Structures are given as structure tokens and as C-alpha cells.
């Protein structure tokens, strides 16, 4: 039970090529994808989430080939959230989270579905906001609502593309804590694209570092958080110091 990638590649053009990537993301815990811009983190994540076609290679999630397995089967195993979410319909938080049950309910919500929806909303501390419309929320609250939707989908694997984008410090920390809890308490496998290496080091169990379309490092935060490793990943001089809660990368 894991996510495996075998020689996965995506050609955007003759000069821009992601992969071939061969790696395995283990079940359980939080895995962070880090790397400089254009390294292919989001590409890999969206290909695992079958939102982007794979040019060559094979991806399996819990033994299911993501290309050949019917999309509705995958939707019960894996959920994926992109960075930008804009809906033409006006939805309340609860209505949005309710859509997360679509793979199971096909649009007819049962009492059981309502329970999952309430749990997801409570889990992300949106209980008091559940009847508010999304356009009445702040960016951080809206981001939480989207995450609640993919949690309500109740899949073993949750993929998130830069969920901390545009969040301030408080909301970013809150979001990471909630994702950590989703992994620990709900037993979800969370795969997440992150920009801030310190967030990745503190909240994830495994870090998968990409550069120029290749996976160059894959290990525990302790293994990655070293001066030479980080410097080569990010093309920037990075010094790792011991902080109060673990290693900290200093790059400014």
C-alpha cells in the first residue's frame, strides 16, 4: 500500500521535461514535496492525482494504476486539491464540503454522508462558519473549506498542491497542524507540495526533494536538513542550525 512511480515523465516541450521519475511514497504520515520553482513538484502531484496525463511511465496508488482505473474508483482512494479554486456557483461551506461526498453518494446525500461532512467541518474548525458563503470568507478560511472537502471525500490518500499559498503565518501553522492531525488521527496519507523547507522539516515525516524534473533526495527531515544537501537542492547557500523545535534552514 503506497504510491509508486515508475519511469514517469511529462514532456512540456523539447526543453522542458519532467522526469523520468521512479520513486515510492510510503503509506501513512505526511510526505512533503519540496524544490525550487519549475522542479516539477506540482506536475508530479497532479499526475499522481490523474489530473494531468502521463506521457510515459506508470503510477499506481494502493495498487491501482491511476490511468487505467476508472476515475470514480480512484476518487474513493485518492483526493487531490489544486492551488487555484474558483467556482462560478455560490456555495456555502457546508455545500462545498458536501460535494466531497460525491464519489460515494453521486449527489444524493444520506445521513451517513452528512455525518462525514459534519466531521470534516468540525475537524477544520469551520463549525461556526458552515452556513456562510465561500465569498464571505477570508482566504485562510476558504482554504480550510477546500481541505475539508477533500477530507470529507474520506480517501486514504490526500494530495495537496501548495495549500499554504497566500496564507499568513498563523493560518499556515494552523493548516499544517490540521494536516498533521489528519495523518495521525485519521490515518490519512498526506502528500503535500510545500515551498517553505522549515515547514516541511517540522511537519512532515518524509521529504521528497525535486530539482530539474528529477527526484534528487528522498528521506527523513533529519537526512535532508543538512547544509550540503539543501544548498544543492535550492541553488542557494543554506545553513542549518539547531532550533528549539528541530533543525532550521537559514537562507537569508
Amino acid at each position, binding site marked *: 500500500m503506497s504510491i509508486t512511480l515508475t519511469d514517469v515523465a511529462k514532456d512540456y516541450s523539447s526543453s522542458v521535461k519532467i522526469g523520468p521519475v521512479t520513486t515510492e511514497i510510503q503509506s501513512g504520515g505526511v510526505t512533503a514535496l519540496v524544490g525550487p520553482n519549475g522542479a516539477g513538484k506540482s506536475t508530479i502531484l497532479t499526475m499522481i492525482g*490523474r489530473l494531468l496525463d502521463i506521457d510515459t511511465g506508470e503510477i499506481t496508488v494502493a495498487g491501482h494504476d491511476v490511468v487505467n482505473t476508472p*476515475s470514480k474508483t480512484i476518487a474513493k482512494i485518492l483526493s487531490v486539491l489544486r492551488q487555484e479554486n474558483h467556482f*462560478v456557483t455560490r456555495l456555502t461551506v*457546508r455545500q462545498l464540503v458536501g460535494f466531497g461526498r*460525491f464519489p460515494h453518494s453521486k449527489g444524493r446525500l444520506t445521513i451517513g454522508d*452528512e455525518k462525514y461532512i*459534519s466531521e470534516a467541518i468540525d475537524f477544520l474548525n469551520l463549525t461556526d462558519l458552515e452556513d456562510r458563503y465561500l465569498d464571505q470568507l477570508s482566504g485562510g478560511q476558504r482554504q480550510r473549506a477546500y481541505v475539508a472537502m477533500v477530507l470529507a471525500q474520506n480517501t486514504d490518500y490526500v494530495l495537496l498542491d501548495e495549500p499554504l499559498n497566500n496564507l499568513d503565518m498563523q493560518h499556515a501553522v494552523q493548516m499544517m497542524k490540521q494536516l498533521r492531525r489528519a495523518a495521525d488521527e485519521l490515518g490519512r496519507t498526506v502528500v503535500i507540495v510545500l515551498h517553505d523547507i522549515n515547514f516541511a522539516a517540522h511537519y512532515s515525516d518524509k521529504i521528497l526533494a525535486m530539482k530539474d524534473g528529477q527526484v534528487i533526495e528522498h528521506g527523513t527531515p533529519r537526512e535532508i536538513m543538512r547544509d550540503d544537501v539543501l544548498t544543492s537542492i535550492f541553488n542557494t547557500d543554506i545553513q542549518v542550525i539547531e532550533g528549539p523545535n528541530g533543525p532550521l534552514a537559514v537562507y537569508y
Partner: protein
Amino acid sequence: MFKPREGAVKRRRTAAAPDADPSPAAERPRRSGPITGPKHMRRYVITMSALVITALGLTFGIMTWDNPAETGSRPWWLIVDMRRDSLITIGVVALCHAVSTVAFQTAVNNRILTPGIMGFGSLYTAIQTTAVFLLGAGGATALVGVGPFLLQMLAMMVLATLLYTWLLSGRFSNIHIMLLVGVVIGGVLGSLSNFMQRILTPSEFDVLTARLFGNISNARADYLPYAIPMVIAAVALIWLRANTLNTIALGRTTAQNLGLNYKRELIIVMALVSLLVAVATALVGPMMFLGFLAATLAYQFGDTYSHRMLFPMAVLFAYTILAASYFILRHIWDAGGAVTVIVELIGGLVFLIVLMRKGRL
């Protein structure tokens, strides 16, 4: 259809009474659904009732207003029968435009674009013109009846589905480019039709105009027997996919995440939309903004994601608008032929106003 929902709202209302004491939110029944609360429900029901009453009133008015014959006599009934055909046409056209526009806007995830703006009507005109151009007047006049009508609809469905799924399949991620390509396609097809029409002999052109420029007072009532079953079938198929459409409205990636085969759904919706537009165009000629007007009003007053609630409201708005213009123009100003023109004028103005106020596509 609203009964169970009303029940749900009532339960909620009674249970919401102890909400006055500061008990936590978990006490009140928490449910999801297209209706957010009693206030929303009331607004939906009131709007629908008002629309139904207005629509019935207009229907009755058009049937009986200013009938010169003695009420209840044979000539009186003859006139009523003639008017009934116009009313059925109005109903079918309203149904086609409202349902196709709402479904199309959901599929393209944009509430400004309509099938008309994207050139569906021009495509139909081009198909018709090409048929007359290639077959000549003799051949074209032979092309009446169920078979040829179905064939035309099939051609329209295949061509429109190919063209628009190609256009909307994400190749043009930018909505502006997509709109531009759609408008240009419409323009090119329009010019092509125009060009062929100029080469036609007068008799061929005559056959073609008779086909293309229907209007409500002089609708192609002979099409109705085939058109109605096709429209009902297409609308029923769209209605059955309402839950899928609700999800498609969340956009491509979210819909795919939720397990929809997005491409297949897009093709199905485009095929059904093109059929509805083709039927409406065959009956009364191309209309660009009726669907837009009806859909915009339905989004405004319905304010829900549920297509099962949006479709009936949009259809009623379309029927009311079309029937009201027909009633005023035909019976009061005696300009029945101008109905579509006037509706388009009003619809176009509303389109501009919405676009200006929204400030973006």
C-alpha cells in the same frame, strides 16, 4: 418535487427554535442541500409561483385576447387553435434555450458565454445553406419529413460536438481566447453561409429563406411533431445528469478529483446542447440572448447550485419573457414578426449591463 425539501426546512425551523438559548451549534440538525434556509426556500417558492402565475396568465391572454369571433363559436376555436401552435412553439423554444444555456454555461464554467455567442446558431445556418447549395432547390424541397429533419439534427450534433469539445477541451486555457475563437467561428460560418446564399439561384434562395427565417408568428409548425419528442428526450437526459452537472460546475480539476470522466461528460452535454439549439433555430431562427437572459435571472433568483432547481426557473423565465413580448408585440402593437428581434435587443442590453457590472468574463 418541493415537498420533502419543505419538510426538511420545517424540521430545521422547529429545531432551530432552541437556537435562541446559547446551546452549541452541534445541537441543531446539520444538513446540506441546495437550499440554505427557510428564507432561501421562501424566495425560491415565491419566485416560482409568481412565474407560474404570470406564464399561465400570458398563455390565457395570448389564446383569447382580441379574438374577433364570437366566444365559443367555431371560428373562435379555429383562431385559438392557430394561436396554440404559436404558444407551443414559444414553449419549445423557451425550453430549448433555457436548458441549453444553463447546461452550456455549467460545462464551460462561465456564466457569460452562451451557445449563441459561441456560434451554435451560425453553425446551424451554415449546415442548412450548404444543404441547399449542394442539393439545389429541387433536392432541398425533397428534404422534408422526419428522416431529413433527423439527419440535419444529427449533422448539427456531430459537427457541434466535435467543434466545441475540441474548443473547450482545455486547449485554450484562457477564457478570452476561447471566446474569441468562438466568435470568429461564428463569424466565419456566417460569412460562409452568406457567400453561398449569394451564389444560389433565386428559387433556391427562396427555399432556404423559408427554412431559415422562421419566427414565432409564422413558426415552422410542421417541425413540431418531430421536434417535441427530440426536445423532451434531450431535456430528460440533461435532467437525469443534473447531479453530474452540479459537480461539473465546480470546474475541471475539482470534477475530476470527484471521479467524473470530465471529457465524456463534456461531450454528452455539448451533444445535447447542440441538439436543443438546432431545434430552436429550426423553429424560429437564431437567437443569441434569450437563453442568457433566462439563465442569468435564474441564477439571480434561484441562487443555488442545484440544476434541478435552476432548470425549471430558467425555463419559466424564458417562457415568460418570450410570451410577454409576443403578447405585447402581436396583440397590442401588431408587430408579431419582431418578437425575436425585440427579445434579442433586451437580452443584448442585459448582457452588456451584466458584463459591465461584473467587469470580467
